[in-house]
């Protein structure tokens, strides 16, 4: 019996696998940092200037999406309503919500526009037509914007610190293909859906 083999059998199992364990701990730590901790750090978060309750407008008030987000006469999408449009109903407080009162005092009475941080703002070279998708393609709002219309609060505006692009507010509905919920909307999101519907598009269809 040699000295070396005697010494080997005396070592505890922990000591024998210490190297492997340390490697695994390091690997798991690095993966956890890369997959869980780091991605949110990529985004800066800003609260909207004022909160808004979609649910109460869609539910109690019985409104539809297009009541506040209509098409203009030339087919372009009007996007967010102006303060004047809000004031058509909210000249005076309707309910007793402090948020509504604050909105009327701060914006309606002073005639100011709310500086909303728009989640869906696209890069300058991307062209998107709501008419093409809603009127011609018969898509519902929810297919891209998720349950945004049923939420009681609006989420903070998150921007990728490097690209400057905002996180998709529709979540999984818009970010479809994205693996991480923290991803921004990408060109793949558009092209995947186009391909799925047999709508292979040339570049100029969506770029300008």
């Amino acid at each position, binding site marked *: 019996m040699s000295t070396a083999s005697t010494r080997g059998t005396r070592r505890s199992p922990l000591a024998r696998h210490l190297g492997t364990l340390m490697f695994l701990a390091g690997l798991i730590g690095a993966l956890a940092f890369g997959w869980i901790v780091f991605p949110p750090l990529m985004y800066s978060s800003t609260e909207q200037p004022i909160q808004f309750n979609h649910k109460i407008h869609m539910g109690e008030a019985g409104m539809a999406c297009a009541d506040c987000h209509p098409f203009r006469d*030339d087919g372009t999408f009007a996007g967010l309503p102006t303060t004047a449009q809000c004031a058509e109903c909210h000249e005076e407080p309707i309910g007793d919500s402090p948020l509504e009162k604050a909105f009327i005092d701060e914006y309606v009475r002073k005639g100011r526009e709310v500086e909303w941080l728009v989640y869906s703002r696209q890069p300058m070279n991307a062209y998107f037509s709501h008419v093409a998708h809603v009127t011609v393609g018969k898509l519902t709002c929810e297919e891209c914007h998720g349950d945004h219309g049923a939420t009681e609060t609006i989420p903070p505006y998150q921007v990728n610190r490097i690209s400057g692009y905002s996180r998709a507010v529709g979540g999984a509905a818009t970010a479809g293909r994205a693996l991480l919920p923290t991803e921004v909307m990408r060109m793949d999101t558009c092209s995947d859906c186009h391909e799925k519907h047999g709508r292979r598009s040339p570049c100029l269809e969506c770029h300008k």
Partner: protein
Amino acid sequence: MSGPKETPQGASRYGMVIDLDRCNGCGACMVACAVENNVAPAPQRANDRNGITLLRVFPMRNGRDYPESRQVFVPMTCQQCDAPPCESVCPQHAVEFDWTTGIVAQIPVRCLGCRYCMVACPYHARAFNWWDPEWPEGMESTLNPDISTRSRGVAEKCNFCHHRRQVARERAAHEGREVREDEYQPACVEACPVGAIVFGDLNDPDSAVAKVYEAPDAFAFLDKLGTKPKIRYRSRQEWVHAMARQGVPEKEVTRG
């Protein structure tokens, strides 16, 4: 929903006919083009080779002495070839033949700035951004929101004001009808004071451009190269036809 379309015989095939006997060389088309497409004013150090001119009007002379001396003005822009040489040389797929419109698309954000396409183009119809675009203070508010600006280091060219087609299609879809011919016209066509430029869908036999496209006095520049341009020119002067076949030996002297 229509399926994939691989051939140039798509829904539309846009083309243009420019009457050289009508063109008086005023340059309104060049100005309209630059304004429409957010081309920034050229910096002081720009010259006729490195400025941005998506559309350029240059004189073509027959080289004879008075009284046989003749001259026409040739508005030259991307000829929207059916077999575009710029497309096949691009290593980035930044040039794409749009099979639904026949328009040769340039996607500036994909471009890496190698300028192969500029070398390949026999019409010198492409321009390179040697500088970041800069507008004098206050002039940013005149920019066209329907088209993106291009940064330094990418090539660009005419795309028949495709953004105008997007706007026209959007309005037509909203009203539930097809796009009318007069709704989609490039800026140069609108600006031409003598009506020398006709533009429209060649697949539509009733369009104004289809009626003159095959006229006996219509021709394409450098036809022998086989690029199959969708811009054709018209002139009743035989020397113009002859020169268009061989190429233009003269330096381009007009710049925007």
